[in-house]
């Protein structure tokens, strides 16, 4: 058997690939009882922290598999194998969730209130007020104020968003690719390809769309318009490439 971290969501829950939603819920309920504090079945095996870590993972697994759309994508992901040049599950998940393709129902699905809420996207974005910065970063906050002004002017000047405008906007904000990668959970290379409009290096359109939306949100750009503009470009250029 593999270690917990290398197990897929089905293995984590100890269920088959064909498990019904009821079976998933049962597995979850059982795990909740198993990995709680003072559980007779685990107190001599796992510490409180370890129990919490296991239960977090189980909750995430359960929420994903109880969501039909996420589950379908997850199955596709499992079948295609976890390869370095393909998006990781985390990237796929954020991309799908960003588009509202698969709403993660908070609490309701597991009727216990345990939900892994996503970290707010867009930290370090344009809307961040200077007062949130620590006193030690006065120069940075000056820069970001200047950046905020430049940014506003830039948004006004853009008619159609392209990869190039995403890059320029990121630079105005003084963000490195890695900063954006950290806040969006999308890897550097994909963000780079999106900016360069190097579509052949990118995964399927559905993920590109999600990534662009996440990048736009993180940069504080009008996300729907950016995504709309970018995808029109993507489709026309993709079409040319294939022709």
């Amino acid at each position, binding site marked *: *058997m593999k*270690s917990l971290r290398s197990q897929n969501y089905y293995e984590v829950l100890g269920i088959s690939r064909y498990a019904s939603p009821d079976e998933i819920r049962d597995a979850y309920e059982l795990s909740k009882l198993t990995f709680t504090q003072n*559980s007779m079945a685990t107190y001599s095996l796992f510490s409180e922290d370890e129990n919490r870590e296991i239960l977090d993972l189980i909750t995430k697994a359960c929420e994903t598999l109880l969501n039909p759309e996420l589950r379908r994508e997850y199955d596709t992901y499992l079948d295609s194998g976890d390869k370095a040049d393909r998006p990781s599950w985390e990237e796929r998940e954020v991309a799908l969730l960003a588009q509202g393709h698969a709403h993660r129902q908070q609490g309701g699905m597991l009727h216990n209130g345990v939900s892994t809420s996503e970290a707010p996207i867009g930290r370090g974005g344009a809307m961040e007020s200077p007062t949130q910065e620590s006193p030690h970063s006065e120069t940075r906050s000056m820069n970001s104020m200047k950046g905020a002004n430049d940014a506003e002017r830039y948004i006004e000047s853009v008619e159609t968003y392209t990869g190039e405008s995403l890059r320029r906007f990121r630079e105005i904000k003084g963000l490195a690719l890695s900063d954006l990668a950290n806040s969006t959970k999308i890897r550097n290379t994909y963000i780079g390809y999106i900016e360069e409009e190097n579509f052949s290096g990118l995964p399927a359109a559905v993920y590109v769309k999600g990534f662009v939306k996440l990048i736009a949100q993180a940069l504080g750009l009008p996300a729907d318009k950016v995504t709309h503009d970018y995808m029109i470009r993507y489709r026309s250029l993709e079409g040319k490439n294939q022709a």
Partner: protein
Amino acid sequence: MGQLFQKKEIFAVGGGKGGTGKSFFAVNLAIVLARGNHRTLLIDADLGGANLHTCLGIPAPESTLSDFIQSPTLRIEDVIVETPLANLRLISGAQDILDIANPKYTQKIKLIRAIQTLEIDFVILDLGAGTNYNTLDFFMVADKGILVVIPEPTSIENAYRFIKSALYRKLKMLASDPQTKGIIEKAMDKKNAYGLRTPVELLDFITQENATTGEFLRREMNRFQPRIVLNQVRSLADVRIGYLMQNACRKYFGVQVDFLGYIENDDQVWQSVRKRQPITLNGGYSKITQSFQIITQNLIQGLQLKPE
């Protein structure tokens, strides 16, 4: 019909803690098997406190398991005694605690080889308490090992300790290179220098060091599949503990544990023990007898208890 070709199966009954009802379970399992027309041999392998003959209500036999293990001339047939029940035979354990406390591994293998020559269907080894090498070795040479657990923290803790000890001993015996053996030995100490907490982590570590050995041991570990039976169950919440233990073992040991079933806490049980009359012999369809039948079916067919 099929029995002609059926290889005999050896079941070992252990559990770590004393007083969980191992002998009670072994005897009644043997009776249910014998009643089901299976030729069954019950072996008292509790080499420190043998008393299965008492559980069965028969006098202490003259020849015992320790005689067979120690004597080069005795055949296994010489130490087998008949019981009042058709199809059920017994090898009694050592009478004198001092005469054989620690048989060598080769002696245990001698016993297992001798068992294979007998015309029987099932063998049940009733092991002693604790996690000494005797108990662990018998548990591992058996085709199926069963842990009798009661729904109490101490019993569960001891069952886990038993699984861990058995698993590490098995891995250590299987590992051929001294480096891997050394890693396993160190990992047996809870505060080991590698920071390895669980058997799952240990295997990951071995695989990093030596992928071939790691994969080999992982396959062997997947074949290690202890069964658990819950005894003295008082409520539905108690029954659930079987599934919780199974869940916990999967995460901690990386081992699939089958939950065979449970036996309710019932006055009839201790009364039968006092009367030296196994409860499943009482006749009629008592709840306890039914529980034993379910457990036996699950054991033979490789199934486990269906959740209610």
